[in-house]
């Protein structure tokens, strides 16, 4: 699927709309093929079944070639054998019907809309109980049909993440093409990343590296201190656990513009997972790792080592923090010497620190001292 989308992005054709339609047809066909497979199972007197990879930590493995984590061989099946399985399949078929129709009509909808839309279906058994269920089902369909959600024209409710930095791009909007410079044509808030970043073409870039920042406060600090200007930085605001679009654009910035990607988060186990999902791919969307993950992304901090080195104000680790760290030690994505060392150090000092803790050394400390020091040490500056 990544090849499909990538080639699409690289196609600089005269009629991008026509290209997109082919894509839509392909996606639609795959959905109908899946329905046809169920149909054939019924016709043969078999029990309709859909097998999908088990989406748990224990079933992801490292893909040497792509350098990302993908699903392993373990599969769980949704079979009409049980009442539960039959309900799931019924919902899947209704959703297939809906998505196929949506693609045929060239419309789009959000995940949340799908959930509410199901309420209007005549078949009560096909309605979703909650949005988790519909989200999960869309993920199932993504995996089984090898078509990304975006190509079903399904959007998340909001992404909201932003870009700021010396980059000129062209976005395909509903009102036609727009050329935007991510410093000059945007306000303080930066450039809003669209739901499908593959509608963007990069035109012109003066940036030297990409810095993904977890919190809004830190992102605003960097912008206010002119860090993007001073160091030629593409500042990507992650807004916590990054949305797919954010991860996708990060990967494209790296792959297409050859920019190093650096991740700057809080110094706690949850933030390491944010880094993990950018660099290695998330467990929930490991089927899209090749499309979303940037294996070359590197972690800036806050490292547990920084807490010690800069003597940052800290909070003690809670029980859930410690559990999360222990779990990360067992997480196949974190099985590197660097992470083992950092996590064990954190467990030992039993402390965590936020990005904003750097302010204890003054508001400019992060832009004047911490980042330049860290980035130099990492060979980026």
């Amino acid at each position, binding site marked *: 699927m990544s090849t499909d989308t990538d080639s699409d992005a690289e196609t600089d054709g005269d009629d991008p709309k026509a290209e997109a339609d082919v894509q839509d047809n392909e996606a639609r066909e795959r959905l*109908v093929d899946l*329905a*046809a497979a169920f149909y054939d199972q019924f016709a043969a007197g078999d029990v309709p079944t859909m097998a999908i990879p088990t989406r748990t930590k224990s079933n992801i493995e490292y893909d040497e070639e792509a350098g990302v984590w993908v699903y392993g061989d373990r599969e769980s099946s949704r079979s*009409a054998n049980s009442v539960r399985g*039959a*309900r799931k399949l*019924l919902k899947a*078929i209704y959703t297939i019907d809906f998505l*196929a129709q949506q693609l045929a009509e060239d419309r789009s909808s959000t995940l949340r809309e799908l959930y509410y839309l199901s309420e209007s279906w005549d078949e009560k*058994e096909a309605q979703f109980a909650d949005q988790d269920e519909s989200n999960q089902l869309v993920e199932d369909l993504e995996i089984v049909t090898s078509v990304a959600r975006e190509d079903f024209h399904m959007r998340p409710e909001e992404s909201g993440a932003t870009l700021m930095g010396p980059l000129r791009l062209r976005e395909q909007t509903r009102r036609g093409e727009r050329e935007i410079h991510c410093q000059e044509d945007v306000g303080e808030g930066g450039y809003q990343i669209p739901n499908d970043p593959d509608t963007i073409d990069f035109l012109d870039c003066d940036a030297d590296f990409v810095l993904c920042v977890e919190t809004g406060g830190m992102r605003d600090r960097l912008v206010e201190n002119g860090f993007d200007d001073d160091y030629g930085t593409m500042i990507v605001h992650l807004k916590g656990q990054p949305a797919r679009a954010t991860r996708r654009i990060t990967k494209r910035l790296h792959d297409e513009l050859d920019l190093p990607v650096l991740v700057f988060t809080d110094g706690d186990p949850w933030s390491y997972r944010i880094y993990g999902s950018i660099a290695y791919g998330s467990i929930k969307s490991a089927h899209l790792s090749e499309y979303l993950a940037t294996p070359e992304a590197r972690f800036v901090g806050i490292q547990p080592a920084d807490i010690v080195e800069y003597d940052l104000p800290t909070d003690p680790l809670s029980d859930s923090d410690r559990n999360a760290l222990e779990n990360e030690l067992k997480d196949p994505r974190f099985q590197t010497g660097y992470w083992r060392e950092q996590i064990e150090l954190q467990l030992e000092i039993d402390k965590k620190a936020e990005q904003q803790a750097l302010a204890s050394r003054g508001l400019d400390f992060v832009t004047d001292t911490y980042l330049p020091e860290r980035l130099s040490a990492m060979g980026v500056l």
Partner: protein
Amino acid sequence: MTAFQSTLGEEKDIAGELAENQRAISIAEFFEKNKHMLGFDSGARGLVTAVKEAVDNALDATEEAGILPDVYIDISESSNYYTLVVEDNGPGITAEEVPRVFGKLLYGSRFHKREQKRGQQGIGISAAVLYSQLTSGTPAKITSRTAGSEQAKYFELIIDTDSNEPEIYAERETTWDRPHGTRIELEMDANMRARGQLRNYVKHTAVVNPHARIELREPAGEFKSERATDQLPAATEEIRPHPHGVELGTLIKMLGTTDSYSVSGFLQEEFTRVGQKSAANVLSSFRDRQFGRELAWSPPDREACIEAVHDAVANKSKEATETFAVAVADRVREFDRLCHHEVAEAAAGAATAATEETGTTFGDTVQERATEAVWPLVVESREADCHAIVNDATTSRKDEAVVRALARRIAAKFNADIGDDETDDDNTTDGRDRLTYDTLRGYVDRAADTTVERDEVAVGDTAREKITEGLWEIGREVPDDPPKIREIADDRDTAGRLLRAMEATDVMAPPTECLSPITDELVLAGLRKEFDGDFYSAATRNAAVHGGDPFIVEAGIAYGGELESEGSVDLLRFANRVPLVYQRGACATTDVIKSIGWRNYGLDQPGGTGLPNGPAVVMIHVASTNVPFTSESKDAIANVPEIEHEIELAVREAARDLKAYLKKQRSMRKRREKQDVLAAILPRMATKLADVTERDRLDIDDSLARIMNNVLIERTIEDNRVKLVVENHSATNESPELTEIVSAEPSGISDGASVVEMDGEWFIEWSPTVESGSEAVLEYALDGTGNSNGNNDDDGGSDEPSFDLDVSGVESEKVTVNAAPTTEPSSTTTTPPTPSTSE
């Protein structure tokens, strides 16, 4: 002084007066004052008890005569009194017997018999008569007609409570419509407050007597129970007492009256299950108790033995003496251990051999002297032998010196006793080391006590027991003849020893011909008849014994259906086919039911103990030659461990079937629910799929059958051949019974099906066995019928054959029938087959 004198005199007078007042109390008078003991403590209860006694008698009498009981009970209210009439179709009672049967307490034929009967003591019906006369002042009116007599006899009588003798008010011939039977009419001060118990009694009696027809009429209604079987209960046979079930007094009485001369003969003659072998075992055990055992020790050195015999024998030639001595020594050496009488036997054997060889006679005296010479040598082994036994019996931690000292002390007790015994004529060791177990234990205890005292070590009870056991083991049974019957009968102690010997000997359980269980089949029939449930189970245990009386426990459970589902289950208790109405809480059956964890068996049991809840009836029947009741009123079975154990096993056995049934019900319900949901979801799924893929409508029956692990039956018609395909998607083999009802004559029917024609319809029946995962094809042809030409598209055809398929033998939840004629668009109609009856 005078005062004293007069007091003495007065005292004499009082004693005299008292003596004058002393007199025998008639049994009737006693019970007049103790009505409650017989279940007549109130008007309400008195009526129930009177019915119970009369019905028990009626059932016993009819069964004994091999007649299917037909019992009629009528209760009517007249002014202040109730009149009870109970009629049966029994053999009748002769005119001579009637007054005594009804007018004398403790008159009966069964008290002395070991046989399962409802009544036993001969109190019941006469007590009812007594109750009637005491409360209403009117005599009992009895009509009885024996088979073949022209007329019935009619009596009016009361019981003279002073003499416990019947007093006849009227006696005459009368006519009666019954050819034989007995009718009793009692008037009594009573009430119907115990109507519930009365009705329960009659209903429950009907459950355990499915061979009886019982009718009850009372002021508020009537109840009738027809018989469910024509099979009379197996006739019971009286049995002799069992050795484990007699008391000392009974034994002495039996010893006094027996014709047998020897103990062995007596045992075999008077007791059940005692043959030659058991008698020998009892005798051996009796000898041990009566005479004790002779302890056997290791044989002495050969040379020492020869020398001793040599010295003891005088007046014989040297060669002969030598031969005798060597013969004695050789025989003695043949034993591992030998006791005194074995030494004597060795001497006797040697004497015979020596006489043969040398021609010299070695008489009794010489043998005796030789025995007395050799025995002291044998006895020398005591200490070493005791040591070995003590060593084995005590823990290895014991100090060797202590063990040795203990062994020496025990061995010494035998010597010490010889001294005692020379003056004392008591039968202890006699110098022959002959002693009873108790004496032996005494030796061990005394020796152990000394050891405890001197050596300051503990010798516990277990060790003492083991040492005693060890020594008792090396004891030999004595060859003495047991005392004769007369002697035992005259000596209570000896009789007691015999009784203990009988109790200690393993004897086969008593025979069960004396018992008449209802049998599990008839328990089921009885429950079915009286309770409208969905499920019934029953269990009859094998006979067991308590105190020499054999007994059989049966249990039955009825569940579901119309049974009351609120509150706890109904517990039906029976003893010898008689319902127990009162004192449920005091009954062993109740205790057992409460102690069972019913949740295991699928019944609700709040707190996990006590009576379970739910729509169920649990019945327990204890049949015995002597049911142990808690009181004379026979309302509750006593807590005898053996009986409780059997009750538990019987109930658990029946409950296991219930559990399996409930489990199956649950899984069937789940399956039904699953099928319902899937039957709703899958067709919609199929419709939607056809929509999305823009293909034809789907037939999903195969998939549905596979999902439900079902048996799928489909009919197809092609060129006049009708095919029924039975696909088994379940995990086990299935044997459905298919009945195809077709309105045209079939031919070429496959698989050996039977065909029956009825009013223009043909019933074809197959019963194939289809293995799990495979299918069976059942076929037949319809030729020459109507205008059918192989195609069913001829709309004008009016005699299109009709089909109807009925499936049984497989739970309806597991069957999917898709047998609509092929002319119609295939639909998913599922013909519900007749539900198979659960067992």
